[in-house]
C-alpha cells in the first residue's frame, strides 16, 4: 500500500494571513542565540536606536502595505482577507514602549486589517527591567505573551547567559495574568550542557506550576550561520561573535544525544499528562491555545514580515530582509524611503511539495494522503519507508480521510525522514 501526500495549491502569489514584526533589541546577548539581535548602547541609553528603528519599521509596514494594496486591493476587500495573527518577535520586543507597540498594531490594523479576535503575540524576557508593563501591553492590543523562560533553575540560567531568575518567570506570568493577557506561553530548553534529566523534570514541573497555556520546548541548537553562508551583507543572520563561538564549541561537546532523547520523551509524557497537546514537534498547548501565527508557517500560509532578518512568504516566493541594522535604517530613514536590502528565492514545485510534506509532518494533524500529484508520488516511497520503520503512523482525519503523522520515535528522528523528502 502506497502512501501519497495530497495535491498542491497553485503557486500563485496570495495575500498574507499573518504578519511578523522583528524587533532586534536585547539588553544583552545570549551566547547560544543566532537570531538577529543587537544589544548594549543600541538598546539603552543616549545612543539608543530604538525610536529610530520603530519609525523605520512603520515606514516598512506602509511600503509593504502599498505593494499589497496594488497587488490584491485594499484590506478586507474581497481578494484581501484581514490578518488572523500578528507576532512581535525578537530580540526582546517587550523593551519597546507600550505606546510604540500600540502605534505599530494600530498601523497593522489599518493597513492590513485584523480579524476580530486576531491572535497578537509579543515575545518578552522575564527580567524585571525587560519584561515590560503587561497591563499596558494588553491595552495596546497584545493578547498572547511568549516568555523566554528557558529554565527554572538558577545555575542553568547563568550557564545560558540569561539575566533573569526562576522567580522573575513567576512574577512575569503573574503580571501577565493580572494585566489581562489571555494566553501565556513559556520557552524551555533541553540538551543544555550540565542539565540532568532530573533538572529538566524540575524545569517542566516549575513551568506547569505557573499554570501557563502553552509550552515550547527546544533542544539547544548550536548551528553555525557563518559556515552556512548566511552572514554576508544580504544575509539574514549576523556574524557570530568570537565569545559566542567559543561558548558554542564548548557546549556542543557537552551535548548528549541519548540524554536529549530521554529529556524529549519526558516532556512528551509529562505535558500530555498535564492536559497539553503536542501539536508540533516542539510545541504543546492546552486546547484552544495553539499558536495560530506559528500554525500559519507550518501550514504554508502566506505571511508578511518586516524588520531586519525577517522572512515573508507569498505562497510562491520566500523573501527576506538583510540582517544588518544600519542598512535597514539607511534605506527606510532616507528622505525618499525605499524597501530595505535583502533577498528572495522562488520555491519551485518540487521544493514546495517537500516543504509541504516536511512542515505538515511537524504537526500532529500530519499529512493527508490524497490523490497523487507528480511531486507527491515522488515522496511516497519515503513515506512508506518511514511507516515500515515505525517513524510514521496512519490515522483517520476529522472527515475520516487517511492521514499520516510522526510517532514519538519519528519526531526524534524526523530529520531522517525529512532529509529523504527534500
Amino acid at each position, binding site marked *: 500500500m502506497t502512501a501519497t501526500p495530497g495535491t498542491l495549491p497553485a503557486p500563485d502569489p496570495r495575500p498574507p494571513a499573518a504578519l511578523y514584526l522583528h524587533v532586534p533589541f536585547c539588553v544583552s546577548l545570549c551566547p547560544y542565540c543566532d537570531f538577529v539581535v543587537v544589544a548594549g548602547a543600541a538598546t539603552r541609553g543616549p545612543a539608543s536606536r530604538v525610536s529610530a528603528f520603530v519609525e523605520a519599521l512603520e515606514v516598512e509596514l506602509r511600503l509593504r502595505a502599498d505593494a499589497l494594496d496594488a497587488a490584491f486591493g485594499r484590506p478586507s476587500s474581497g481578494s484581501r482577507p484581514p490578518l488572523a495573527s500578528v507576532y512581535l518577535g525578537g530580540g526582546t520586543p517587550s523593551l519597546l514602549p507600550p505606546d510604540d507597540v500600540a502605534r505599530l498594531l494600530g498601523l497593522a490594523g489599518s493597513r492590513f486589517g485584523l480579524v476580530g479576535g486576531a491572535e497578537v503575540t509579543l515575545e518578552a524576557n522575564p527580567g524585571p527591567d525587560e519584561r515590560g508593563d503587561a497591563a499596558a501591553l494588553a491595552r495596546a492590543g497584545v493578547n498572547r505573551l511568549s516568555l523566554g523562560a528557558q529554565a527554572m533553575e538558577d545555575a542553568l540560567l547563568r550557564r545560558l547567559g540569561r539575566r533573569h531568575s526562576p522567580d522573575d518567570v513567576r512574577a512575569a506570568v503573574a503580571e501577565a495574568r493580572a494585566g489581562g493577557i489571555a494566553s501565556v506561553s513559556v520557552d524551555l530548553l533541553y540538551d543544555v550542557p550540565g542539565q540532568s534529566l532530573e533538572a529538566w523534570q524540575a524545569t517542566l514541573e516549575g513551568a506547569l506550576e505557573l499554570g501557563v497555556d502553552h509550552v515550547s520546548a527546544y533542544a539547544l541548537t548550536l548551528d553555525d550561520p557563518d559556515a552556512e553562508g548566511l552572514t554576508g551583507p544580504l544575509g539574514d543572520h549576523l556574524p557570530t561573535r568570537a565569545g559566542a563561538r567559543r561558548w558554542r564549541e564548548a557546549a556542543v561537546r557537552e551535548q548528549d544525544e541519548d540524554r536529549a532523547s530521554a529529556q524529549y520523551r519526558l516532556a512528551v509524557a509529562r505535558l500530555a499528562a498535564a492536559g497539553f497537546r503536542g501539536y508540533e514537534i516542539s510545541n504543546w498547548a492546552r486546547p484552544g491555545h495553539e499558536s495560530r501565527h506559528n500554525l500559519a508557517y507550518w501550514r504554508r500560509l502566506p505571511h508578511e514580515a518586516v524588520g531586519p532578518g525577517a522572512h515573508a512568504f507569498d505562497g510562491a516566493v520566500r523573501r527576506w530582509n538583510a540582517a544588518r541594522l544600519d542598512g535597514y535604517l539607511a534605506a527606510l530613514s532616507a528622505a525618499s524611503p525605499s524597501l530595505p536590502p535583502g533577498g528572495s528565492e522562488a520555491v519551485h514545485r518540487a521544493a514546495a511539495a517537500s516543504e509541504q510534506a516536511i512542515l505538515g509532518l511537524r504537526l500532529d494533524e500530519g499529512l493527508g494522503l490524497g490523490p497523487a500529484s507528480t511531486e507527491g508520488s515522488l515522496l511516497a516511497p519515503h513515506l512508506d519507508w518511514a511507516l515500515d520503520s515505525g517513524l510514521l503512523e496512519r490515522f483517520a482525519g476529522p472527515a475520516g480521510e487517511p492521514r499520516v503523522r510522526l510517532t514519538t520515535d519519528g519526531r526524534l*528522528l524526523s*530529520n531522517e525522514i525529512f*532529509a529523504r523528502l527534500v
Partner: protein
Amino acid sequence: MSSAIPQVRLRNFSIIAHIDHGKTTLSDRLLELTHTIEARQMTSQVLDSMDLEKEKGITIKARAVRLEYTANDGLLYGLNLIDTPGHVDFSYEVSRSLQACDGAILVVDAAQGIEAQTLANVHLALREGLTIIPVLNKIDLPSAQPNVVLEELEAVLAIPREEVILASAKEGTGVPEILEAIVARVPPPKGSPEAPLRALVFDSHYDPYKGVVCYIRLAEGTLHDHDAIRLMASGAEAELLEVGFFRPQLVPVKTLRAGDVGYVATGFKNVREAQVGDTVTTVATPAAEPLPGYQEAKSLVFAGLYPVAGPDYPLLRDALEKLHLNDASFTFEPESSVALGFGFRCGFLGLLHMEIVQERLEREFDLDLIASAPSVEYHVNLIGNREPVVVDNPARFPDVGEIDSIEEPWVKLGVVTPDRYIGSLMELTTNRRGTFLTMEYLDPQRVHMHFELPLAELIVDYYDQLKTRTQGYASMEYEEAGYRAANLVKLDVLVNNEPVDALSLIVHRDRAQATGRALTTQLRKLIPRQMFEVPIQAAIGSHVVARETLAAMRKNVLAKCYGGDITRKRKLLEKQKEGKQRMKRVGSVEIPQEAFLAILRMDEG
C-alpha cells in the same frame, strides 16, 4: 629561438634537493636570469603547473625547460634543465630524469644541512656518473650555518668546500655563479649528429590535439620536424606532427640534434605506444640497437578505488585511463568487492602517490571515490606442490588452511635526524617490527640512522609519525630490501555481522588483537549512528578478537522551524541528504569514505 647551438655548447642538467631546500625557487631564478620567462610573466613555481603541486609545494611530475644563456665568454649556450620530483615516493622518477643529464646541481639548505633525500639523490646521481655542482642555498637566513654544512658535505659526501657555491635563490645571490658553473663544469653531451637517430623517451604526457607528447633526449643522430619515427620497443610508427623545445611551454623548431632535450608530438592516442624508456629512431635510417631503457616503475602500495555511486564505474574507468596517460607510474585493473561493488585495484609508488592519484581523480574528473585500506604485495606459499601466489588485496587472501607460509616485502630505511630523537625513532621503528642496523654522525648534532622494516609497517602513517615525533626535523628515504618470511594473519571486519571485505587487513599475528581493538574503536567513531544498534567486530577466521557497539541513533531533529527558518532548514536537510549520498551503503549500514581509511588513523586515538 635558435636551435643551431653547436653540441659543444649544450649542457643537460637537473637540480636535486631535499623537499623545501629551494629547488623550485632556484629553477624560477634560472628561468628569470636567462630571460626564458620575462619577470612580468613570472609567477612563482613556474615548473609546478598542477594545482596540487602548487598547493602541496612539491613537484610530482618531471618537467623540462630549455634555457639560452650567454656566458661570460660571450658565447650562447643551450642549457636544458630537467626538473625532478622531490618526495621520497618519486625517487624512481628522479633516477629517470637523471639518466637524461650530464650534471646535477645539488641544493642543500644552509640552515638544515644534509637530509635523507639529499644523500639518496646524490647516490643516484653518482651512479649515473653525473658531475655534481654543490650549492649551499638560503645563506641569507639568520639560522644559516654555512660552515657546519660545508663540513658536513666534505665529511659525508667528500665534496671539497671550494667547489660549493654559496647562494640565496630567494634573493638571487650566487645564481650567476651557478650558471657559469653549469657551463664550465658540466660536460657537453657526446654522440654523433650524423649517426642513426637514438633518442630516449624520459617522460610523456597526453595532449588532446597533439596526441602523446614524448619528452626525449637525443643520444645520437638528428631529428627533423616531418620525419617518420619508430618506437623501437613498441614498434609503433608515426609521422611527426611537431618537434621542439620546452620554454617551458612547447615551442616548435625544425630540428633536434644529438645532445638536445626536447619533445616530439606523435599523434598517438595511447601512451602505451610510446612508453617511458623506449627509444625513438627514424623509419628511414633506423638504429641497430635501442638505448638501455629504464626499469619499469614498481608499485609498492596497492589499494582498491571504488566509486561511491555504483553507476559511476564507467566514469572511473575512463578517468583512470585518461590520468594514466599523464602518469604511467600507477597501475590499475578491474576488481570487485562484496562491500563496495565494482572498482579498480591500483598500484602506487607510495602512499603520497596514492593520495595524489585519488585527489586528481576526484578533482579533475569530479568523482567521489572510496579507497580501501592500502596493502603491500605478499608472496603466499601454498600447501602441496602448488605455485606460490602473489596477493596485494587482503580480501583475496587464500584460506588459512591453504597457506604454508607467507613472505612480505621489507625496505632499507634511512633517517636523518637531530640526535635528541634517536630514542624516540628507535622506539617507533621497533614497535613496527623494524630492526636497527647502524648509524653515523653527520655533524655533532645530527645522525644518519639505518633500519630495516616491513614495507607494510612503513605505509601506515610511519612518515607522519616520524615528522610528529621529531617536530618535523627528521627526513627519510627507503629502498626495497627483498622478501622475508612473516607470521601474518588476515584480520576481517564485520559491520552489523556482515564482513566488509574492503576493511580486511593483513597483520602480524602477535598484534592482531591490538590492531583489531584499535580498528573497531576507530570505526565506531567514524561510522555515524544508524537507526539501529550496530556491532563492529574484528575477527581472524571465525574467532572474534575485538568488538565495539555503535549505539542506535536517538535524536536527529530540527527543534525550531518558523518563518525565517524554513529556507535555511531545507538547505540543512539537503546537506544531510548529500552527506548520506556520499556514504557507501554496506548491507543496511551507511559507511562514510573516511572509515575505509581508518587503519591509517588509528594513532589519532
